[in-house]
Each structure stands twice: as structure tokens, then as C-alpha cells.
């Protein structure tokens, strides 16, 4: 996408005047988000909803890729397989159905199975097996069917 600097300046001014922390404008497939960090550092993130042609910046890497994200409903340890030696519940490329177990998040010695809420294809596994996850951390990216 092409960044309209004048429009960007206008948004930043608006953010400041209205004392907001974030403004997001969406037009056709383009989306601009202007966000002010509470530490008063201006951060500007631009992205294209329908895929970006440019090299991803640090900000863009954390931004939304197409598809739906499965997030962790609690704090715990992420496991891809039912047992340490077992096969992963799902692999990239697998077709999944609603209710299918995708992984385990262990909290307080309890193995909580995380189930798919949408049907689709697993396109990305975002956490390494055995790593700690926080509430809301993204675990999988799913392309809905």
C-alpha cells in the first residue's frame, strides 16, 4: 500500500488533540492504525489487510496474518502432544473440525485440552512445544474453510 503522509499527520494530530491512545482507519483493503504507547512514545503501524508486498517490519511481524488465531484461555505450559513421546495433535496443513483437540495447556498439574472453535486448515503453529504461555497468547493460526 501507499502511505498518505498527510493523512497520517492528520491522524496523529487527532490522536493528540482527543487524547486517545489509538485510532484505526480502514478503507477498502488498506488499514492504518496509529497508536500511542502510554510511555508517550509514538508508534505508527501501517499494514494491508489483504497481504503485504513489502518486507515485514518488526511491527508488521506481530500484526495479523490472514486467518483466525487460537489463543490460550489461561496461563500454563503448552504441549502439542498428549504424551512426551506421542505424535502432535495437529500439524501444519492438517484439516481440523470444530471440537477437535489442538493442544494441551497445563496449569496447576491439570492437562487442559484446547479444542478448535472453527473448522479449517492449520497454517501455523506459533508456540514451541513445552514453552510457557500467557493468557491470550496466540497458539495456532487457522485458515477457515
Amino acid at each position, binding site marked *: 500500500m501507499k502511505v498518505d503522509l498527510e493523512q497520517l499527520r492528520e491522524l496523529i494530530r487527532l490522536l493528540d488533540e482527543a487524547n486517545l*491512545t489509538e485510532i484505526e482507519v480502514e478503507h477498502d483493503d488498506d488499514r492504518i492504525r496509529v497508536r500511542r504507547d*502510554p510511555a508517550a512514545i509514538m508508534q505508527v503501524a501501517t499494514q494491508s489487510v489483504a497481504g503485504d508486498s513489502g518486507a515485514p517490519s518488526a511491527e508488521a511481524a506481530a500484526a495479523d496474518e490472514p486467518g483466525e488465531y487460537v489463543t490460550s484461555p*489461561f*496461563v500454563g*505450559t503448552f504441549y502439542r502432544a498428549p504424551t512426551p513421546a506421542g505424535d502432535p495433535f495437529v500439524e501444519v496443513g492438517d484439516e481440523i473440525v470444530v471440537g477437535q483437540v489442538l493442544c494441551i495447556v497445563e496449569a*496447576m498439574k491439570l492437562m487442559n485440552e484446547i479444542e478448535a472453535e472453527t473448522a479449517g486448515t492449520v497454517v501455523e503453529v506459533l508456540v514451541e512445544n513445552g514453552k*510457557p504461555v*500467557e493468557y*491470550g*497468547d496466540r497458539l495456532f493460526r487457522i485458515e477457515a474453510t
Partner: protein
Amino acid sequence: MFKKVLIANRGEIALRVIRSCRERGLRTVAVHSEIDADALHTRLADEAICIGPAEAARSYLHIPAIIAAAEITGADAVHPGYGFLSENPEFAETCAQCGLVFIGPLPEQMRQWGDKVRARKLAKSLGLPILEGTELLTDVDDAVRKAEALGFPVLLKASGGGGGRGMQVLRSAEEVQASFETARAECTAAFGNGALYFERFLDRPRHIEFQILGDQLGNIQVLGERECSIQRRHQKLLEEAPSVALSDEQRKDMSETIRRAMTEAGYLSAGTLEFLLDERGELTFLEMNPRIQVEHPVTELIMGVDLVAEQIRIAEGEALEVPDPPLLPRGHAIECRINAEDPDTFAPSPGVITEFHMAGGTGVRVDSGVYGGGRVPPHYDPLIAKLIVHAPTRARAIAKMRRALSETIIGGIRTNIPLHQRILGHPAFEQGRISTGFLDDLQG
């Protein structure tokens, strides 16, 4: 020695704990809700874990999430702060079961002191003076009989209540008959416990509380009193230490009574015994708070102790260093609780803090959990900062506090600073003529 302490709280008290940990060389883990992702405790701790959404029941009050955060970070102890889970015995037990040290009293002690009727009985059996009162009331007829025996006016209280909720002054048998059933239903709804009892009603008493520490070896240290009579709807607003209403002899006698009582009780960690001081100058036990309190800094300033560091030391198994003769208060300290609220209507005032400049200079301490550009979420307590001053005399402490408030700038939200200025500038306050009715009188 602990290596890593998880702080199961937010705001200024989370920072307060981080500070003592850091000075002791301990690593810290903050837990936070989604809305607190940029909060100061989240930013200043060595590690931070998001444990749930903004709603406290699903984050700061959610025991499994907090325990899981301790597990994934390898924390070996948990400090609960005040409020949230600090007085929850199940939380303390769960910590122990999961191999975490809970920095606070034993679960059984929280149960004993958390139930007001049980606490009164225990206090009496330990030799503490208690306000005349009744056993639990069985029904409305029993209530009328007991109120008449005690003498009107009486104060109707809920055994499971707290923060003044569920309390009512009743002046006649007719009022008891009219209020009893409704009060019981309300308390059942609010506390899951409809147990009610009466206490003798004191008109305009002073609220005076004593700070204690107890270690695992059975030592008890009494660290003097705080006066917290400036309250609005039983919520403390401004506290000071020492109290002008106690003589040195009364302070010494009550400290010794408490030391003996709490030694017998085997109390562990920091705690506060709250008393009412009536017009005759008699102190009677009100309740015991088994935790660190919001107003603990005034005690720290006049006694020269770090109460949170002491809590940690005690939890590590170290002995209290109780000096003989006991520490004496030095100078006078005052704390103002700065709340994000309208100074006149007391309506909460959440939002983004656009400007934040806290006072400085000699004898001024600031305990705060916010910063300029940060946000005060509407989901939690409105306390954003505590301004605390220490000076050689009460008059100089008042002057210092007025000066400190005058240089404090908080933009973007409303605060109760104007109300504090009115309190401190009032002749009755300056003369130390205060009671729990002071603020009602001030506001007419």
C-alpha cells in the same frame, strides 16, 4: 532465602512489594490482566505474565491462573498485597500445596480473624478489651431482647461483613423489628452469610489501630499505632501516626497487652488490630486485619522499619529483631490516599492520566502505581497514589503535607486532592479534634 517472588496484586502495593524484593536481591514476577499490560507494576517487575481479562474475578482473583503463572516462571514465594486474595485462606492453602510460600499469616489464622464473631471471642479470650456486644442473633424476637439488654442505640453488624458494609445503627425495639429481616437478607446476598450481631454503638469514636509483626519462632513485635479516623463510609482517606489521642502510658500498656495476646495466639507475619477509642478514652478491639495495610507507610516512617521486607524475612524463617527497650515513634507521619475520583461527588474518574507530577523534597514519600500517559482502568480500586510525609512534629507534618499536595499535578482525571486540602486546613483537624464523624461534619 527466596529467589523469585510473584506479586499477586496490582497498583501501588504491587510496586511497593517489588521495591522491597529488589532491595533484598530477589527477582520479581508481576501478574496482570489484559488491561494492565502497560501498567507500572507490569513494566517494573523482572517478569510479567498476563493471567486473564480485565475482570478481576478472571484475573487477579483467579487462583489457578496465579498459581500457573508462578509455576511457569519458577517463583518460590507469593506476596498477595492487600485486597484481592490477601485474606483468602484457600489461596494460601493452594500456594502451600503447590510448593509456594505464601507471604502472610497461616490459613487458619485468616479464618479465625476473618469471621468477626469468632474474632471477638478469640480477642476476649486473649485478654484484649472488646466492645460490649452480643452473640449471634437467632431471630427478630431474640434481636429485640438482646438489644434491650445491651441498651440502645445499638450497632447491627454482619459477622461476615467488612468495610462497614451491612452496618446499621438502631435506636429502638421498633427499629430492630423493622430492620432485622431485611438486614439478614441483604447480608446473605452480599456475604453469603446472614449471621448478625449487635455491638454497643459509639457516637463519633476515633479509629486507632496497632501494627504487629510475628515470626515463625513465636516472637511478636508491636510497632505502635496509627490513627485512621478520617473516613468516608468506613473507607479510610487520611491516616497519621502516632495518634494525638493516646498518652505514652496508654500506648505502652496497650502495646504490651497486644504483645502478650498475639504471642499466645502465635500470630505470623504482619497484621493490624483495629480499635475504637470512645469519649471516655477507652480502647476496645474492633477487628484484626491479617495482611499488610494500605496505610502501613506511616508506621514505617515513624518506626524506621520496612514492613514488607520484614514480611519477606519472616516468611523465609528469619527471626524478628525486637530491640529492648522497644522502638519508640520518632516524629509524626501523615498519609493522604489520592483517589481517581471527584472530590465532591466521589464518583470514580477513570481515564488516561495526561500529566503526572508527584511532590518531592525532604520528608516526602510517594507510593504510586501510575504514570503520565498511563491509564486508570475503571475495573479496580480508585487509589492511584499515596502521598506520605514525615516531620518532627504533627504541625510540621501538616504543613509539609499541604505543601506537598500543592505541588502535585495530576491531569486528565479528577482526584480528591482538593478534599485533602480542605481536611488539612480545617481548624479542628489542626487541633487534633477528629473522629470517624469528621468528614460527615466537614461536608455538612
